[in-house]
């Protein structure tokens, strides 16, 4: 089956010749009309639209946005904060930066609609420290929006006021985790908080109820407010509504970002047709479908079981290429859609070396609060690096598994899972390669790139 055509909702104007990131251009394309209309409605109606839309968060966990908003404590009498998670740092993910650089007003409009719906008076955009241009662009865009009365006091004469400030991080991946982000915004180390009791919806920023949403999620809110929740829910597939942006990197002919209706494209269509297949003379070996924390898939493996289609249960028997790229299908085969970062590896890649690269990342980024995560990520890095640069032993595979298996479920935040899943899944899928690494080592040196 040929791949569907792209459906660009969020990325409609990304890379469009002549489209600029200033207010005038945005308004020429209908910008802020949705906000104008939204502020004439009841906030609860807007929350209802988001609930009806089925929108799931695009930051990684795929949590339903309407449900998240429904959990906010509105009775405490404390102010409600909204934080835009613009920390984009999951390896393999590159969508939010393009939105902020090329279409910042789309984010600001989505944010203001979300703030109005939730009676938020103060929002912060927490942007990665490594994106100084993005921060400047957002600051300029907010200033333009403020001058036009879309942000700030008495918005569009409604009596409703809301301010947005940009807050820059400083190079720590764990600031992407929502409670680490909140600590960081409070001016502290980004040590994630334990849940319960520190659910952001109840005890978030300054111990006040707080909504944390990803950049892309908030952009979707704008489109939901524009077309209505029901119409939005018709895009994509039931349970996986709207569009999904895939960021494809690694060993394909045409890496890049592509936006499709959710659940309508398979892995094979995406990387073979849309991205042009493997590089000349190579074949696909493995793919990580949802950012580097997602479990790896091996080309050639098959997934079988029963799944729900409409009201019926039907059998499925999929190769990696056949898997629909939506949250539920990917979860069904034991991995996740995560942030939409698809990392493709071909037959030149040695899996021990690829894992050593990933382990170096997690060991560097652990915040260090929980012993299993801090020590485990370090040991997984040490073992895999030693295998590559020192001596590799057959028993290293079992040793690595022993370390990885002791981390998940024993930590404060989901980083514990994120850092152990690569090791666990690489071993499960490519265990033979780990056991035989001592012999294989260096044999492929002229074809392969150094990974660690």
């Amino acid at each position, binding site marked *: 089956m040929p791949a569907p055509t792209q459906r660009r909702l969020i990325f409609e104007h990304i890379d469009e010749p002549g489209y600029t990131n200033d207010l005038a251009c945005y308004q020429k394309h209908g910008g802020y009309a949705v906000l104008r209309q939204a502020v004439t409605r009841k906030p609860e109606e807007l929350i209802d639209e988001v609930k009806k839309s089925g929108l799931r968060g695009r930051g990684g966990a795929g949590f339903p946005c309407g449900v998240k908003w429904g959990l906010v404590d509105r009775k405490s009498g404390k102010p409600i904060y909204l934080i835009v998670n613009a920390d984009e740092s999951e390896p393999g993910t590159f969508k939010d930066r393009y939105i902020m650089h090329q279409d910042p007003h789309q984010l600001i409009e989505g944010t203001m609609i979300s703030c109005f719906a939730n009676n938020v008076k103060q929002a912060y955009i927490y942007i990665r420290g*490594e994106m100084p241009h993005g921060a400047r662009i957002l600051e300029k865009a907010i200033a333009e929006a403020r001058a036009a009365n879309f942000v700030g006091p008495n918005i569009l004469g409604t009596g409703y006021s809301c301010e947005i400030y940009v807050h820059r991080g400083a190079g720590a991946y764990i600031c992407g985790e929502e409670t680490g982000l909140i600590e960081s915004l409070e001016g502290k180390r980004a040590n994630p908080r334990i849940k319960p009791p520190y659910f952001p919806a109840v005890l978030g920023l*300054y111990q006040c109820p707080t909504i944390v949403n990803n950049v892309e999620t908030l952009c979707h809110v704008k489109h939901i407010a524009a077309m209505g929740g029901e119409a939005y829910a018709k895009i994509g597939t039931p349970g996986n509504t709207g569009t999904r942006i895939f960021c494809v*990197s690694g060993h394909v002919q045409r890496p890049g970002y592509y936006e499709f209706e959710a659940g309508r494209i398979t892995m094979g269509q995406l990387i073979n047709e849309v991205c042009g297949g493997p590089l000349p003379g190579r074949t696909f070996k493995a793919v990580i479908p949802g950012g580097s924390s997602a479990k790896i898939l091996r080309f050639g493996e098959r997934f079988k079981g029963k799944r729900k289609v409409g009201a019926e249960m039907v059998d499925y028997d999929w190769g990696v290429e056949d898997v629909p790229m939506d949250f539920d299908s990917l979860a069904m085969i034991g991995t996740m859609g995560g942030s939409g970062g698809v990392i493709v590896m071909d037959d030149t890649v040695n899996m021990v070396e690829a894992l050593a690269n990933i382990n170096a990342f997690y060991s560097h980024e652990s915040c260090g609060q929980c012993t299993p995560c801090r020590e485990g990520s370090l040991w997984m890095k040490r073992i895999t690096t030693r295998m590559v640069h020192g001596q590799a032993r057959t028993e290293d595979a079992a040793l690595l598994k022993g370390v990885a298996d002791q981390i998940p479920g024993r930590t404060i935040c989901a980083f514990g899972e994120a850092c152990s899943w690569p090791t666990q899944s690489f071993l499960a899928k490519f265990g033979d390669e780990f056991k035989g690494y001592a012999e294989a080592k260096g044999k492929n040196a002229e074809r392969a790139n150094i990974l660690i």
Partner: protein
Amino acid sequence: MNLKPATLAQIDEVITHYPVKRSATLPLLHLIQEDVGYIPEEAIPWIAAKLELQPINVYEVVTFYPMFRRKPIGRRHIKVCRTLSCALLGGYKTCSALEKEFNTHLGEVSPDGEVTIDFVECLASCGTAPVVMIDDELHEKVDPAKAKQLADQIRADAKRRI
């Protein structure tokens, strides 16, 4: 610590963004680093006093976040992404090429004082790997040939400055 008047004005402005002063710790550190080039020792008690904190509150933040530096670096800061997507397309080779161009090693100031090269983690531009950031500027698809061009450019800029 001699901060420029513009920096001091920005510091006073940014503190107003937050209902709790402590939140301004990161913004103040950024502003000082942009002005001075690194975080000097005296910045820590200075910020603490400004935000009504203890010096340890600032110190623990400085040591947590990789972007804050405790000592001066080369005039230009070259950050090479080493994470998987970039490595798969030759990021480590790009890094060696740059080290050779400037006769230096990761984390050191080059002998001419011009650059410091560091490895950093994923810069959210994996589709145009390998990527390198020079100061605030992102450069995409930097193979060794492009690394050489960038190095030539840096040296040309340096000459112009003299």
